[in-house]
Structures are given as C-alpha cells and as structure tokens.
C-alpha cells in the first residue's frame, strides 16, 4: 500500500490526572482503506478519534509522540490552524444524526456553511456543489430536499446529510463514529453501502469506529480491537476473524449471538398462557380549532397471537412498526382501542381501576434503557421491593428484605446491592436489577422491550443467558421485542414479524428465519450483517 494518511504514535489520554482512558496506542491508516476500531463501551475508541481532532473535554490530558496527517504532525499545529484541518482534511460523522444537525436551519444551508468555510466559491457554484453532494449521498429529489429542515427527513436521510456535510470539505480521512448504531438494520445496510461507494469514488481513508463485530467484518480492510484503552489485537479483516489471537477477541466473537442457534430449540407444544385477539391501538389525529378527529395513527392494528407457557415469542420489526406500543399496551400502560387480552383465563382488557391493579402481577415489563428505568433517588433494595409493597402489603418488612436479598442473588448481583443506588451499577447490572424488580411479583409473562440493545455484546450474552435460566427455573414466558434477528435466533421459540402495526408473518423461529414467506422478512434477514467467516446462509 501507499503512504499512511494518519499515523498515531504512542497516544495516551488521561482524565482528571488519574483515569487512563487511552493507554499508549499506535496505528496507521492508509488512503483508500477502511480501518475499523472495535471495542466495547468505555474502551476509549471515541476518545481516540476526538483526540486526533483535539476535541477532548477540558479535564482530559493528551500525550503522544506524534499524530500526523500525511506526515504533518498535528500536535505542532495551533488551535487556529487545526480549525482549518477539521472538516477540510478530516471529516467526522457522529452517532446521533438528530442532535448533530441544527434544527432551525435547512439542510442545504448547513451544507453550504461548511463549503463556504473551506472554499471560496460563488453563490451559484456553492448551490451547485450542495446539489452534487446531496446526489452523491443518494438523497432523492435533492433540489426540493435541500430546502427541508432536519425534522422533515427520516433518520437514514439525516445521516446521509451528515455524510454530505462531512464530505463537503473533501477530506482525506473520514472518521465515522458508530454511524449506524441508532438506525434500523435495512437503513444501516444502505448507509454502509453508501460509505463504501463514496470511499471507492474518492479514494479517501475511512476510519470506522464501532462495537459491532459483524458489521466491521463486512466493511473493513483492517481491524483493531481496543480493551480498556489499549489496542490488544490488529489484523487484516479476513485473518482476524478466522484466526483471532487474543483471548479478549475470542471472547467477543464467542459472545456474538449466532443465527444457527435457532435450530436447537425445543419444539414441544405447551398450553397457551396469553391470548391476544384482534388487538389494536389507534391514536387520533386532531386538527382545527375544535380539535376534530380527522384520522387515526394505527400504531397497532388488529393483532392476534398466543404465547405458550414457558415459551418465548419474539416480536421483530423496524423502529416505528408499533412493537413497543403493542408491548406497553398489553400492560395497559398505553390505552388500547380495541381487542381482547386474556392471560391465564383472566381477561385483562376488560378490567380497570382497582381490579386491574390487583391483576397487574401477571404481566411485567423490562425496558430497553437501563438508565431511565430506575428512579435515581431510590435504593436498589427499595426498587426491587416496590412491587411486593404494592401488591402484597401484608408481608412484613423482614420477610420483604429477605425476599429482595434472594431475588438479587438469583439475578447474580452482590449481597450489598440493596443499600446502593442504581447509578453505582453498570448497564448490565442495572438490567439485572430491573429483572429482579419484575420477578418480585412472580409474573407469568415478561415483556422484554429491547432489553439488550443498549448493552455491549459480552454483557448482552450474559443477560440472555440469565433470561433463559430464569425461564427454565420459573417457567415464565417472554414476549421479546427486538430489532436484532441474531438475538431472536438465540432466545425465541416463535417469531412474529411486525410491519406498520400488523403482524405479517408468524411461526416457529427456525421456519421464519430459514424459510421466510414474506418479502419484508427476507429483506430484514438480508440486511443483518453476518460475520464473514460464517456461512452467511442459514441451512436447515
């Protein structure tokens, strides 16, 4: 290969003079190549990218032998000179396309702003360039779209605009920090294909930062794995995934859920626990002075399914398909507009007030975000005891404490957890607390709303294992809401695919994943990034 675009030598970053976030790392990125930096959250991969652009927070201290762009040491550049390098020679794409765009400026003027910063073009030439860029990132009807505001675009389109902004300065190096993490799988596939195409057109270097090994294996030429601030392994992608050397890399690869595991499930039939019939959830759209109802948003539209005792039904679909609404309205957290929900012979959908409260214990929910699902001002012991207090007020406080201790032990948390606050725990541990909280009331069915998507792969594997163990021990059923088909293969007995508020395909997991009947399901399956070493096709 040619000369390196970016060279990092012995880079270390220290926070508050003690926490070493990045610890003596060195690597090079060549032009025309895709270099991927992989690692779990907190491993220091984003900080590495930010230290190249010198955008670190104030309490961080950076030391390095050299950070060179085309042999030009950026450490010797003043802040003023670095401003010109940012955007023009190094472009950056961030994770969240919503908060990275200014909501009160049209996307055209936001791209224009960057062009004007780096080039002095006439007004017409600038407009022309904006159009070209929007065409390059494949936004349909760019002439019309450039006058749109960010909220008028979809998530994928917003990320395309972000890429256009990053490309506006014609950079030699494009840093993409988790560019697709907040997007759906099908959109993710499109964005990644786009990045690849643009890279081939412009021959720039692409530095991809990601936690997703499967995605990286499809896109990158070279891979480096970071663990606790250190690079533990670097290699050419093909070799790296077929013969991982470092134990940490091996552990990461092992933790990946595998699509093959769907064939190992027990197919024995059990009596149904939950029966949902013709269930729907419509939101009225009101317009005019009198708030007249003009139409309905059909978030969930006439859905029927059963869940068997001790089994798991996975509900898959892209964001906005109504799967979370369905989960929450089963618990009556969102009012349903029609249909019947029968659990254990009790028709929940006909109860309300005090009767409903008493029957709440049957269905419980575990949320996606382990940070906002617990009151930050309550002790973990009180959080877990909350359901017991509400539904079994007669239990004495000593018995309650003993029960909480037992529950915490069951989900694998240390004994002293009860007297600590949620913020003292990691994401995975918090998810365990949430599971303990719902187990406290002995539910028959637990709705798991993307319980692992905010977690790292290795932690995800542990939580899935915990859920499976609890299912075997207590015989609970799960309604597992997720967008990740690999996780589905791992946990589910049956799969229901949701699209625009309706269930379009429903069946045993092996059948749906290996012989999908619907075109939409096929599209979803095709978009899932699969580790390149595996056989990408699933065969029965």
């Amino acid at each position, binding site marked *: 290969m040619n000369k390196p675009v970016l060279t990092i030598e012995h880079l270390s970053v220290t926070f508050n003079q003690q926490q070493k976030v990045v610890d003596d790392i060195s690597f090079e990125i060549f032009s025309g190549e895709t270099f991927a930096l992989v690692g779990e959250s907190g491993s220091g991969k984003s900080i590495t990218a930010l230290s190249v652009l010198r955008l670190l927070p104030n309490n961080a201290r950076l030391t390095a032998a050299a950070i060179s762009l085309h042999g030009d040491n950026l450490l010797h550049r003043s802040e003023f000179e670095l401003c010109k390098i940012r955007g023009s020679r190094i472009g950056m794409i961030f994770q969240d396309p919503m908060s990275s765009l200014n909501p009160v400026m049209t996307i055209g003027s936001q791209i224009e702003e960057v062009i004007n910063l780096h080039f002095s073009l006439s007004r017409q030439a600038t407009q022309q360039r904006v159009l070209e860029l929007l065409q390059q990132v494949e936004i349909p009807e760019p002439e019309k779209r450039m006058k749109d505001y960010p909220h008028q675009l979809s998530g994928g389109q917003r990320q395309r605009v972000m890429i256009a902004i990053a490309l506006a300065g014609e950079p030699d190096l494009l840093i993409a920090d988790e560019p697709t993490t907040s997007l759906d799988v099908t959109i993710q596939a499109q964005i990644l294909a786009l990045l690849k195409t643009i890279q081939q057109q412009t021959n720039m270097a692409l530095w991809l930062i990601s936690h997703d090994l499967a995605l990286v294996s499809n896109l990158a030429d070279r891979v480096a794995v970071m663990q606790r601030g250190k690079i533990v392994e670097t290699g050419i992608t093909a070799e790296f995934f077929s013969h991982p050397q470092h134990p940490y890399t091996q552990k990461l690869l092992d933790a990946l859920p595998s699509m093959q595991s769907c064939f190992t499930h027990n197919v024995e039939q059990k009596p149904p626990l939950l029966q949902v019939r013709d269930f729907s959830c419509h939101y009225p759209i009101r317009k005019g002075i009198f708030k007249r109802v003009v139409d309905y948003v059909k978030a969930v539209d006439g859905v029927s399914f059963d869940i068997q005792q001790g089994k798991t039904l996975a509900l898959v679909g892209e964001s906005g398909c109504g799967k979370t609404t369905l989960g929450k309205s089963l618990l009556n*957290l969102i009012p349903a507009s029609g249909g019947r929900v029968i659990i254990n012979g009790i028709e929940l959908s006909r109860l309300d007030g005090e009767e409903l409260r008493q029957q709440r214990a049957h269905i419980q*929910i575990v949320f996606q*975000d382990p940070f906002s*699902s617990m009151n930050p*001002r309550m002790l973990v012991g009180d959080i877990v005891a*909350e*359901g017991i207090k509400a*539904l079994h007020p007669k239990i004495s406080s000593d018995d309650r404490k003993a029960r909480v201790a037992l529950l915490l032990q069951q989900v694998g948390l240390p004994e002293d957890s009860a007297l600590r606050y949620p913020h003292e725990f990691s994401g995975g541990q918090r998810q365990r607390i949430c599971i303990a909280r*719902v187990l406290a009331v002995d539910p028959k069915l637990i709705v798991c709303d993307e319980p692992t998507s905010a977690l790292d792969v290795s932690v995800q594997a542990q939580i899935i294992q915990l859920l499976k163990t609890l299912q075997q021990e207590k015989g609970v059923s799960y309604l597992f809401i997720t967008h990740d088909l690999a996780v589905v293969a791992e946990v589910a007995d049956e799969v229901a695919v949701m699209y625009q508020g309706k269930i379009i395909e429903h069946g045993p997991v092996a059948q749906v994943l290996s012989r999908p009947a619907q075109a939409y399901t096929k599209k979803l399956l095709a978009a899932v990034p699969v580790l390149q070493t595996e056989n990408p096709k699933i065969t029965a």
Partner: protein
Amino acid sequence: MVILWTDALIFLLLGLMLVLGLYLHQKEYMKRPLQQIGRSKVAMVSLVVLFFFMLVGLLDSVHFKSAKSNDIVSLLDVWATPLREQGEKTYSAPFAVYLYSKEMMTQADGTQQWGYPRLQFGGAHLTDPEAQQTSDITEKALYGFAQGAGLVIFFLFLLWSVLLEQHKPFMNSSSAKAAWAMVFLIVSVNYALIYLSGYYHVFGTDKVGEDVFYQAIKSIRTGLVIGTLTTLIMLPMAIIFGILAGFFRGWVDDVIQYVYTTLNSIPSVLLIAASILMVQVYMANHEEAYTSVIVRADMRLLFLCLILGVTSWTGLCRLLRAETLKLREMEYVQAAQALGVRRRVILLRHILPNVMHIVLISVVLDFSSLVLAEAVLSYINIGVDPTTYSWGNMINGARLEMAREPIVWWSLSAAFVFMFALVLAANLFADTVRDAFDPRRGGYE
C-alpha cells in the same frame, strides 16, 4: 404571655420541622445525605449562621405584657432594654460621641453656641472624648470579645468532657471544627458588640434617634417570618397543583393552567394593596380586638405573607408542571404502574423526590426576593406596618437620606449586612442540601 398569630405559626413550623427531622433521622436512605451535609464545611458554617438568626427570631417571638409599661414586649426586647430605651434626638454615626446635626446649645456660662452637642448615651461616660474614644472602644471591644471567647471555650470543654467516646471522631472532623470556629466567631463578636452597645451606638442611630443595631436585630424576625411563612403558603399550592397538572393532564391540567394564568395576569401589587386595605378596614371595624399597635402590625404582617404566598406560587407551579410532564414518561414511572403501585404512591415516591431539587432552588431564590419584595412594598406603603421593624423599612427610611452630604450610610449598611448574611447562608446551605440529596453526585467533592 401573649401569643401573636405569627408567633404561633413560627412555633408550629418549628415543631413540624422537628417532627419531620426525627422521622427522617431513622430512615436508612437518609443516613448518607445527612452524613454528607455533616462533612461539608460550607454547610456546617452556614447552618451555624442560620441557627443564630433563628435563635434571635425565636427569642423575638416570645411575647408578653411588660409589667412596667403595659406594652407587649418580647424576650429579645427585655434583654436589649438598654438599646431600646437609650435613644438620641436624631442621627448619630456609629460609635459617635456627638450628634450628627448641629443645634443651638446652652453653655455652662449661659451663652448660646451653634455646634454638635454631645449624645445623651453614646460615649456619655467619657470625660475627654477626643483623647479617650479610640482606646476606650478598643479596650471595651477586646473585653467583650474575651468574655464571649471564654464562654465558648468553657462550653466546649464542658461538652468534650461529657461527650460519649463514640461521638468524638465527629467532633474532630474538619467540618465540625469549622462550625465551632464559626460559633466562636459569632458569639465573641456578638459579645463584643453587646458589651459596646452598653456605652455606644455601634451602628449609629436613625432619624428619630433609635439605635440601628436594635432595629437590625429586630428585623431578623420580620425577615424570617416573611421568608418562611410565605414559602409555607406558596409551596403546597405550587407542588400540589404543579404535580397534579403535569401527571394527570387532561381537564385537571386545563383547570390548573387556567387558574394560574388568570392569577398571573392580575398585577400582584394590586392584589396585595387590596388585601392590606381589607385587613385595615377589618381591624378598624373590630377595634376592641386590636387595641395594641403590635397586634395590629402583626395582623398586617400575617396578611402580607398570605397574599405574597398566593401571588407567588405560579412560577414554581409552572416549572413543576413541566418537569412532571417529563418525568411521567420516564420508564421507572411506567414500571411502577406495571407493578400495580397506586397513583398517589407514584406521585409521592417517584415524582416528588425527583422535582425536589427545583423546589429547593426556587424556594431559596424566592426567600431572598421575598425579603426584598417587602422592602419594595414598604415604599408604596402596602408592605409591613410602618411601626414594624424590618429591613425594608430601614432601607426605605435610609433611601431619603442618600442625597444628604455627608451621607447617612449606616442604616442602609446595617440592613444590607444582615440581609446579605441571612440570604447567603440560606443559599449556601441549600446548595449543599441539594447536592447531598442527589445520589448521582454522592462521593464527588
């Protein structure tokens, strides 16, 4: 023993605080925040300052009929009798020996002279003021200071010897030392000031010759009453309405929003003027029940607190409604709902504690603005009664003399220093309390 309305409310409030304190003291989750407050130097020092203000306020809230003059006086008045009774003719500067304005004096030989006369009480014991004054003041200040210092040291030794072994480490901590240093400072300086007050007017005198130091300490009670009673009226309204509107939305929200928007669009000065007028008319019609000046003034103060409370809850209510709207969508609230927790328990356990930081901040900010509002209202004669001692009345009186040459600065300065100390201490203490009760900030100093 005479119990005024505000006295009763102050002691009721104190009782409630004690009960709440005892109740919370036993709770598991209160241990860490309380320890954190105990460890903070700033909190302990400001607590000492607040404590002294409260002590003075409480002493001033025990009223009884004086045997001598048939007036209603407070414990503080009895204690400060010399200050109260040793008035001068008009203005005199702090530590002055001569009056601030010239007048015609009759000499010993019968001739008339235009000049500054000696004060009746300030420095009256000096035979040759020019030569003796400085050394006399220093000597008396040191003597008073030493008395106070001796008292504190004696008390500390006593405490140390009766203290249980298990509490000694706490007494040795840096925050406890800071607190005791503050106690030492306050007691000693106050002793010096009190001792000096026997011979001089340490903060000077006002237009009618009344001691400004006495006015300033009498104003502490008024400030505390306006700050706390108003908050006490405002808080329940703001919290209950704000949280209900945000949590239940729908028609509850519509009604509450309608009420506070309407209330907000009426100029509050108008409401306050109307209510003060009403009280005055009421008291004029029932003269037999309001014979004493002090009872009338107290009634007016109480109504001022009431109406200030009624007009000032809307801002906080709005903030709380918005915060509750955000919190009710949080997943822990939904999880509690799913667990079958009753709605009132959700409100108390999940919503209320998570809006308390807003309440605390705005209460402390309101406290200072209420003390200031009283000064502004006195200006248009709808504040506290002109006979009530208050920092607002002091500032209002001093305002007229700002243009005088040389300037009469002491009334204003005394009011400023006292208000500043109270509001600063309250702010610093509230800051630490807020941090201590936010578990996410625990452990970060």
